[in-house]
């Protein structure tokens, strides 16, 4: 459920609104639910509202963990079994 997608905030607008961009697709959304949003942030957009900010460092961490797990599998191609 809850279709939502990370998008780049490009511009803050009055009334807690903001312009976002998703690969060139631009849209105006509400940022009333997330404090201190700033241009350059990525936010998760759901039904026209930002729900959360993406933490770039944590995203890196996830990717690193994924890479590590993948690398492990590559090192031990037969697995543990």
């Amino acid at each position, binding site marked *: 459920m*809850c279709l939502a997608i990370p998008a*780049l905030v490009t511009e803050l607008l009055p009334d807690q609104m903001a312009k976002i961009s998703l690969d060139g697709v631009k849209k105006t959304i509400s940022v009333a639910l997330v404090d201190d949003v700033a241009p350059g942030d990525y936010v998760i957009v759901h039904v*026209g509202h930002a729900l959360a900010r993406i933490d770039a460092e944590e995203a890196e961490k996830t990717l690193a963990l994924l890479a590590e797990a993948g690398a492990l599998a590559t090192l031990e191609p037969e697995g543990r079994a």
Partner: protein
Amino acid sequence: MKYVDEYRDGDLAAKIAAAIAAEVRPDRTYSFMEFCGGHTHAISRYGLEDLLPANVRMIHGPGCPVCVLPVGRIDDAVRLARRPGVTLLTYGDMMRVPGSKGTSLLKAKAAGADIRMVYSTLDALRIAEAEPDREVVFFAIGFETTTPPTAVALKLAAEKRLPNLSFFVNHVLTPVAMRAILTAPPVPGERPVAIEGFVGPAHVSTIIGLEPYREFAERHRKPVVVAGFEPLDVMQAVLMLVRQVNEQRAEVENQYIRAVTPAGNVAAQSLVDRFFELRESFEWRGLGSVPASALKLRDEWAALDAEKRFSVETIRADDNPACECGAILRGQKRPAECKLFGTVCTPETPMGACMVSSEGACAAHWTYGRFREHDSLRRAS
């Protein structure tokens, strides 16, 4: 798409698949429920079943607010929409969901009711302001993800004192439904439930954080891994669940650290709290009546409450008795085991909750996965 494409990398997926294959014990099966339709969708849409080992079984949970809304509430919405002067606003997902006697919002619209699809809760404010002569009712559905946007609209409606806007509230709660599944009494003659862990909600958790899942780990000894909705997120979560099971741990882990914090979105929580309170109980398609599983508007916001303004009295209506949604949502049956699946029950003419939205277990299987039965048959023949 940044923060999207990285998590759809097919090459990496193959490696994670190998990692999972490497870690699962061949002598046992692993049954995990992904609660959310978002995960169900990712699994089906990207064909994750083909990447997971055969002994890892994903049970599709009821985490689709469109699917679980009971027939009686759809009927309420249809009745509201049919009232002269009323304009009902709804997310597109709800349009084709069948109520009782074959009705739906789409058909009510075709028969003349003023029903309009909106994309955002803010559309409701715009429409109510632009058309002061219409009684505008926003059909608010969704889990904890969608409730805060409704709360924003409520706040603005209250501030602007729009006399012609009200909300028909059907917001439901994820952890309560998870608990209902885990604590359901065994149905005589059915296989016992075999959920060994949960892939926990992605966007719901951005709002509610991790705390609400602790009871499942601590009291029920079920590992929970909150995960993003991209396919690599799901695979990583499966890997994390496999490891917890293998290590006999039962913890709440967070795979979706890029968006979910332990405390969640506190501002959103308090806004929701300002407008909503718990219902005593609420009917779920497939799960039946579940205590304290949904929200309603607090009494002080009665003026904004469509249920009060229009004296909505929900009339219970039953699903097709042959529908196996309940068992499927509890992980006891698979879609293709339902006699109606794919014959009278298809996404065009859904008979039950799981066929309603493309995120329902039956619909996802029909739309994306049903070739597998066919393939296995062919291989067998």
